[in-house]
């Protein structure tokens, strides 16, 4: 049956060797009152039928729409080499590289991942990966609390809704999380930040801001960093990695920690994961960084080699005093990002970032031509908010025309009247002029405002 290795004769030989007649004997240590007798599950199926079932289910999803949906997950061209490498069993079916002598492949690729993400973020110490952008953001908030000994975190409300929700769960009522409002242009309200930092009886551990933020708007991260540091707080920039090919890096603007979602680096959308949590920091904060780290060293013969290092931060050594409970991470997703970055190179990655930005500017113009304007007017890269009356209903009607018109922000901000009519639209290098014309044309029909 399936993947089991034994014939009945093999099983009999093992039973004979053990001097027992039935495998049941090996389960006699389970108290009778709690012993189970089988599982009520669908019948077993051979590969052909399983494949048929999976194909049927996949066909029931609709992935053929023209899509302007981003909101933290961005569909990009994935070079064919990425999956060719990821499918290699030597990478895919290896465990965590606890035995470095027979794991140099995995270890060197993680070191290369750390090195390239250090280039992208401008921060020298990059963890080998976290679960996703939300968990990395939550871990970053906890890092600021550990590093400062303070217990209050400020976060811009214009960080991805799920990241804020996850951070709130991780802080769990033990630590405070206060949200900062945004200005009409979509950036975080710096005056409100100053006021919050000035509450000296409630000292702030860290300030979290998105770059670009959830509205697609570029934040004045350097100003946020200065204000945070002046109050003795750390600054966390929540980043999108493709944008780092062109945007000022967290390191350049003085942020202490960068957290973010690595999915855009060669990882398919997959309805939510597995993705890649990026977490990078300064050398000063290295020992506060949760998760595995790979370092370079030498073997006894003087050959360059790689090994997991600074392990005294980790749960299997430190137990209840570890920096985090993380064990399993997202190594294969980090490999995807490594191959992606190696294939694209600096020019290719800039072309991806600029390609999305160029398409977004065409989108903005095309929508303006049919009378649809941006809501948040701050500088943006490849994602923008626009006002479409009755946005949710229009969004739904456009599905019927084969268009996925981004995200109605009322889904995430039901109590904010300013966002009741907001659509969050994203463009990438995959977005064509034809896609933009279809969206603009459809919105013009459903939203017949004279241009």
């Amino acid at each position, binding site marked *: 049956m399936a993947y089991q290795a034994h014939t009945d004769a093999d099983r009999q030989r093992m039973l004979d060797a053990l001097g027992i007649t039935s495998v049941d004997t090996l389960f006699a240590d389970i108290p009778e009152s709690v012993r189970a007798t089988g599982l009520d599950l669908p019948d077993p199926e051979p590969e052909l039928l399983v494949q048929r079932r999976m194909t049927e289910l996949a066909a029931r*999803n609709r992935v053929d729409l023209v899509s302007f949906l981003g909101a933290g997950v961005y569909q990009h061209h994935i070079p064919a080499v990425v999956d060719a490498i990821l499918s290699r069993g030597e990478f895919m079916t290896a465990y965590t590289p606890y035995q470095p002598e027979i794991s140099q492949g995995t270890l060197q690729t993680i070191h290369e991942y750390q090195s390239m993400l250090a280039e992208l973020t401008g921060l*020298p110490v990059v963890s080998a990966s976290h679960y996703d952008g939300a968990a990395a953001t939550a871990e970053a908030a906890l890092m600021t609390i550990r590093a400062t000994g303070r217990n209050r975190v400020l976060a811009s409300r214009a960080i991805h809704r799920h990241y804020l929700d996850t951070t709130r769960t991780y802080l769990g009522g033990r630590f405070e999380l206060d949200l900062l409002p945004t200005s009409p242009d979509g950036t975080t309200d710096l005056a409100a930040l100053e006021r919050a930092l000035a509450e000296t009886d409630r000292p702030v551990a860290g300030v979290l801001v998105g770059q670009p933020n959830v509205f697609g708007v570029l934040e004045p991260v350097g100003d946020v960093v200065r204000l945070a540091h002046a109050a003795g707080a750390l600054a966390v920039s929540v980043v999108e990695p493709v944008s780092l090919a062109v945007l000022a890096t967290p390191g350049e603007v003085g942020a202490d920690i960068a957290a973010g979602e690595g999915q855009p680096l060669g990882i398919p959308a*997959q309805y939510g994961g597995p993705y890649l949590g990026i977490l990078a920091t300064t050398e000063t904060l290295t020992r506060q960084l949760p998760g595995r780290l790979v370092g370079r060293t030498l073997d006894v013969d003087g050959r360059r080699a790689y090994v997991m290092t600074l392990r005294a931060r980790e749960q299997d050594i430190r137990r209840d005093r570890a920096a985090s409970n993380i064990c399993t991470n997202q190594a294969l997703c980090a490999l995807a990002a490594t191959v992606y970055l190696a294939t694209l190179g600096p020019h290719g990655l800039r072309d991806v970032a600029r390609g999305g930005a160029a398409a977004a500017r065409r989108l903005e113009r095309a929508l303006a031509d049919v009378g649809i304007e941006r809501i948040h007017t701050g500088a943006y890269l490849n994602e923008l908010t626009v006002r479409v009356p009755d946005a949710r209903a229009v969004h739904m009607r456009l599905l019927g025309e084969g268009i996925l018109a981004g995200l109605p922000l009322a889904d995430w901000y039901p109590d904010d009247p300013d966002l009741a009519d907001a659509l969050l639209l994203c463009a990438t290098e995959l977005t064509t002029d034809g896609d933009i014309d279809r969206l603009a044309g459809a919105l013009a029909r459903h939203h017949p405002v004279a241009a």
Partner: protein
Amino acid sequence: MSARPDTGGDAVARPIDIGLIDRVTDDGSLGPRRAVGASLQPTLAELSVPGRRTDQVPHPPADALAGIPDDLLRSSAPALPELSEPQVMRHFTNLSHLNHSIDGGFYPLGSCTMKHNPRVNETAARLPGFARLHPLAPDTLAQGTLELLWELQGMLSEVAGMAATTLQPAAGAHGELTGILVIRAYHRARGDVDRDEVIVPDSSHGTNPATASMAGFRTVTIPSAPDGGVDLEALRGALGPRTAAVMITNPSTLGLFERRIVEVLEATHAAGALAYMDGANMNAIMGRFRPGAASFDVMHLNLHKTFSTPHGGGGPGAGPVAVAAHLVPFLPAPLVVRETDGTFRLERDGERPGSIGRVRAYQGSVGVLVRAYAYIRTHGGPGLCRVTDDAVLAANYLRQRVGEAWDLPYAGPCKHEFVASGARLRRETGVRTLDVAKRLIDHGYHPPTVYFPLIVEECLLIEPTETETLADLDAFAEALLAVAREAHEQPELLHEAPLTTPVRRLDEATAARRPELRWRPMTGAETPCPQ
């Protein structure tokens, strides 16, 4: 338009001379600098040549970044490597050859369940309908995946004997955190706010106490009984009005079923605490023991162990959490629900107001969940029971064979894994378990888990799984017996091992003392620290 000319990448700063590594001698002074010539595979940076590129996406127009102020743009392009596609392919292929993998050989790594990773699961997860689905796509576009997830919630609940399952957690430790937060929410909802302790046995995975700390609990560690099980008296002594939960790994990390499980659960519940089961070892008991049916309140399952999804060199996995009925209100949102008309949807915001909230973005590591679903459909109920029976039979057989030369500190039967101790071997020969592990590599094997659990001296934790043939089990047993002989006859061989690997033992002390965590030097500014 940006005032800065867009150079299209011509101004890329050059990395990266990997240069020389300082040797630090034992007294802390610098020894002679050694050229790092002898590397197995150059780094991407070393392979890079300016101007080399692959052709992946169209070149955008020059004004692509119009409207972005200069101070928001980076001052120089990132110093990523510039390579051709054949170079990329060859680089990673050569690196892959340096790995041991299940595809390549036996991997008896205790507590990790390194079983075969079926390829039909991989094919399924790559179907465009699954792979390209955006996580925020409206439910109407996601009916296939939602149906799969809904079915999987039910199938895992059946295996666990629980009322409901959340598929969100990304890994076992993430599942533990989720489960412990659910437990905290349960106590708080009852106004039972003083429970700030979590009890774990000293044989537990390190993630258990780390999880308790992360969730704001104090860890109370209790010793194990001489037979390896929970010490009931110690447990009863530790339980009290401040106990929120008891975390039990069952079978334990010694590979033993917890014989006093009924008493453990009774004592836990009598104290008003909840019982959490670490399900890392579920491969040992599927269809034989359903934790929820035995009155465990919460458990997580490691899909990358029991349900065959690949480990990927450390991840990704998935750690769904199954709970009893009284904890369903607190599970993270969203669950997948089935409407009366047979369609499927995600729970809406606020639909379960008691929920602990999100533990991650979106719905879970769905690509992993698709693989596990295919695995369960392949096996069905009888198949999963057979998996467990074969895994336990193989472990007991191997245990008996290994016992011909190695000490087995605990009486059998074991479940899916067992511990052997190299303590006597060390006393007799000076050979440590670390040396044994390294020598096993020369014999062609990935070593077992060593020095865990912490309560066994010179411990080897051996888990063969159900997917190894009898011939493979015998060959591995022979190798362990041979290593024991070598320890007596040529102990220096074991101290030197491994001798046949691409690199030999590493200087881990220097790696930790002078961390080299990236290519050097990095371009751009080093980050100043505040205050």
